[in-house]
């Protein structure tokens, strides 16, 4: 026994020595910065390109080498815990892809406003609708790696084959339902289990986008104008839930959770949806431009078109835009070098790579206008689809409501709970009740966060006073000064409805 233990010990020591000795040489003559980002082949390319970009733009040491070495810290795309634990402990990566709202609330991000102006990655270099994602209290904290918006991809051949009207680029619920019913009726054999659906069931984050777009088209958002109260206890949210339920259970346009589980078991972002779309069991999928990364790998190129999110009758057309933004960590020893990376994200080199890879939209809107974006030479089957996404951002794009009083993940979870309650069992909760409960739970979270932090309470009370004034003015049919409103949706909505005071008239604040 003794000898066995000794032997194993010796083996382990040798193995340890081998392990350490075969480690790649990680020494570097120049400072190293880490970029915490999600895993994908493109990241390696982007890393190498950054090193080249540094040389081309004169960021070099005396002997002409890049001034900094970029290394990747690869993490799962949905896992926040690593960034969270490391950043509060002071050892996070120098550059992080993150939700700026969440990380800023922890106070771990470096203010980049001056650097942005100096190095050319200020807000003028990207979509204006992303401002709420990147800017907090007037200070810029990050720059987009890409810009995401979700639309409906259409399998053109499938629609032609069935002789169903092609989904138009812009449409309302009625058209959506009409085409959908026709599609489902023609594609399925009556009396048998339904195998083909009009579109995939939006799950996870996409489900949130679905519900949010639907309530926003009726002029409602998750929070009120000043983000102090959740406004989901409203018939308009219940209406959206009911409509969704109708699409799933009455019209059978989309699979229910149970049906979806029956068709595919792969979890995750787009999971098996793309396979189902490719084989024609979904006429459409609700997904972003990044679907092309996978679709291009499939054997035969698909004939594709893209439709916007449908709008409620006479409603307000909108679509949620998001971003995977990079920010600089406050505890980084090389903040200045890290800000160079953000500047690289605004460069032509980087934008062109996003254009070519189809990894969502390039950060700079100008690159969504060029030919390489609209008509990639290698993929003529995609022509006509790319501009829909850029249009969706420019014309309809609104950022998410991020209240300073509740983390956005909590809001998303509570809303999806409400959706589950309605969708999984129609008897379990009426949509009004589910809507009310969701609003109550979110407002409870708001109140709770106030008791935790005095400075938050001061801000809250200030905002509540403004909200009162807004409500009074609205009730009296008067216009409201735009600077009172912090909710990105209401800001856009008020302007377009003509409810906002012109800047020249000024407010009383």
């Amino acid at each position, binding site marked *: 026994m003794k000898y066995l233990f000794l032997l194993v010990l010796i083996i382990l020591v040798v193995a340890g020595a081998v392990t350490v000795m075969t480690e790649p040489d990680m020494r570097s003559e120049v400072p190293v910065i880490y970029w915490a980002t999600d895993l994908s082949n493109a990241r390696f390319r982007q890393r190498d390109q950054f090193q080249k970009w540094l040389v081309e733009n004169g960021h070099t040491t005396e002997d002409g080498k890049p001034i900094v070495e970029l290394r990747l810290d690869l993490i799962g795309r949905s896992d926040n815990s690593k960034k969270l634990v490391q950043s509060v402990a002071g050892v996070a990566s120098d550059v992080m892809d993150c939700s700026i709202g969440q990380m800023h609330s922890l106070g771990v991000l470096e203010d980049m406003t001056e650097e942005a102006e100096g190095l050319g990655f200020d807000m003028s270099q990207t979509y204006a609708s992303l401002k709420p994602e990147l800017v907090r209290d007037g200070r810029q904290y990050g720059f987009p790696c890409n810009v995401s918006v979700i639309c409906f991809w259409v399998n053109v051949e499938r629609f032609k084959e069935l002789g169903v009207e092609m989904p138009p680029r812009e449409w309302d619920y009625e058209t959506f339902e009409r085409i959908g019913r026709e599609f489902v009726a023609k594609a399925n054999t009556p009396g048998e289990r339904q195998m083909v659906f009009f579109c995939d069931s939006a799950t996870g984050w996409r489900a949130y986008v679905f519900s949010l777009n639907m309530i926003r088209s009726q002029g409602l958002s998750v929070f009120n104008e000043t983000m102090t109260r959740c406004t989901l206890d409203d018939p308009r949210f219940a209406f959206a839930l009911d409509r969704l339920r109708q699409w799933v259970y009455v019209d059978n346009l989309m699979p229910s959770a149970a049906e979806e*589980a*029956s068709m595919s078991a792969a979890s995750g972002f787009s999971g098996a949806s793309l396979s189902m779309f490719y084989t024609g069991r979904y006429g459409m999928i609700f997904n972003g431009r990044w679907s092309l990364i996978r679709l291009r790998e499939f054997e035969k190129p698909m004939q594709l078109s893209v439709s916007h999110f449908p709008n409620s009758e006479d409603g307000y057309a909108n679509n949620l835009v998001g971003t995977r933004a990079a920010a600089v960590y406050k505890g980084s020893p090389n903040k200045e070098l890290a800000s160079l990376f953000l500047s690289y994200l605004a460069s032509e080199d980087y934008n062109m790579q996003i254009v070519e890879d189809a990894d969502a939209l390039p950060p700079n809107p100008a690159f969504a206008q060029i030919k390489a974006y609209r008509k990639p030479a290698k993929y003529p089957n995609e022509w006509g689809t790319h501009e829909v996404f850029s249009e969706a951002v420019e014309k309809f794009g609104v950022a998410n409501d991020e209240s300073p009083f509740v983390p956005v993940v909590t809001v998303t979870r509570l809303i999806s709970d409400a959706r589950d309650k309605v969708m999984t069992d129609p008897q379990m909760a009426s949509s009004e009740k589910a809507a009310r409960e969701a609003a109550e739970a979110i407002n409870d979270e708001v109140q709770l966060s106030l008791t935790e932090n005095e400075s938050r309470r001061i801000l809250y009370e200030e905002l509540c006073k403004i909200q009162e004034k807004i409500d009074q003015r609205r009730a009296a049919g008067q216009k409201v000064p735009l600077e009172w409103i912090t909710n990105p949706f209401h800001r856009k909505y008020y302007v377009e409805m003509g409810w906002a005071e012109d800047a020249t008239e000024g407010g009383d604040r």
Partner: protein
Amino acid sequence: MSRASQRKRSRREVATGLLFLAPNILGFLAFTLLPLVLSLLLAFSNWDLRLHNMFRDEPLKFVGLDNFSRLLSSDDFWKYMGNTLFLMMAIPFSIAGSLLAAVLLSQDLDGGSCRSKWLLVVGAVFVSGVGILAMLGAGVAAMTLLIGGVVGLILTGGTMGGSTVYRTLFYMPHFCAGVATYILWKKLYSPYSGPINAVLSPVLDNVSSAVNSLPPGVVQAGLWLAVLLVIVLFAFGYYRLFDWWRQGDLGQIGLLIAVVLLTIPIATGWNWLPVLAAGVLLLAVAGLLFAGLILGLLFGDRPFKASADEGLGGAMIFSAVLMVGMFVLIGLGSVMHHLPEMATDNGLEPPQWLSDPAWAKPALMIMALWAAVGSNNMLLYLAGLSNVPGELYEAASIDGAGRFAKFWHVTWPQLAPITFFIVVMSMIYGLQGGFEMARTMTQGGPAGATTTLSYYVYTEGFETGRLGYAAAITWTLFGLVFVITMFNWKFGNRFVND
């Protein structure tokens, strides 16, 4: 022996004891106890990652029991606690499953001699060969052929390699780190295409046509039958407990716990029944019986006295079994009541499992049961079974004990230390459980139905950053496990030493 030398000896003993402990305890102090004490302190503070981290040095405030009072008054906490306890009801079945698997595997698989073993092998090869040929001839689907081939392989391998092969196969799910297992079970549970419902739906069709052919009243009478049975079980339980107490086989603590366990199904279940009268009847009869028991305890004569914790374990197992039975009966009764209307509507439909808040937990429990058969617990039992001295079985055979009697009087007591270990660990892991499952399989949904306490800790601590509160949840959990373990300890050690 002089006192001084005695003291010297005892000091020496402590020194040796600590010496052996040292390597473990040093690491333990640094990597477990230190963080642990910190987390305990923080449970009484407003520790919040949004306020306190490397870059935000607001003073940490100690808020006393605020976190705990908020916790206990939060609906979420109780809901998730309920979920956790519900899922833990699978533990006894899991333990039984792994014990059964271990007992099966430790049987003599060769049929006693070398010759019979080879006969078996030849038979297995023959059966699988003919089977596969027949399937090839019949032109079955490739999948059926594949499964047939696998069955043939296992059979041949099993007869040749004996328990080694089966044991490895049983343990297979643990090699795949959950991911594959979880995805596969999602597939099995698919409501419209999964194999489980494919088997269930014809069965349910038959049931619903049978129900439809009966007048509704007959089926609904099942509710009253169930209520009656619950009362019978309840009365029987009280009678037995009282009798044991009177005979001096059961002490006060055991009696108290057993009575509480027995009463839980009635106290919580009476208002689940769809007919109020049935619930009230149940409550009334139970109340009467309870009063009777109290009277009996107060005034009945007790010729044999027992120590307070005498017979605790047996009584707990006894009432736990009755408790589960009563719950099942109450559930069945309610189902019977609704059956006619359910059957006339659309026929009975099999459950939607993971997509249905009501069925998601049972679905996970079934999965846990399956995983338990070939689990670590099975390995522990296997090791323990081979440790049972053969002489004991021989002695039992001489006494004329049957197979079951041997198991009950020889195997089971010999396995007591292992069972004790497994029970304690299952409780601990059960209360902390469901995190991986919720993260990878259900995200705690639908509608929070599979969110367990540990997943709640995760969402509170890592979504919102309220680590003080998360620590408070953890320590509440700890309190619970601790109390349960104390009981296990007390009863377990007694049990082990018997």
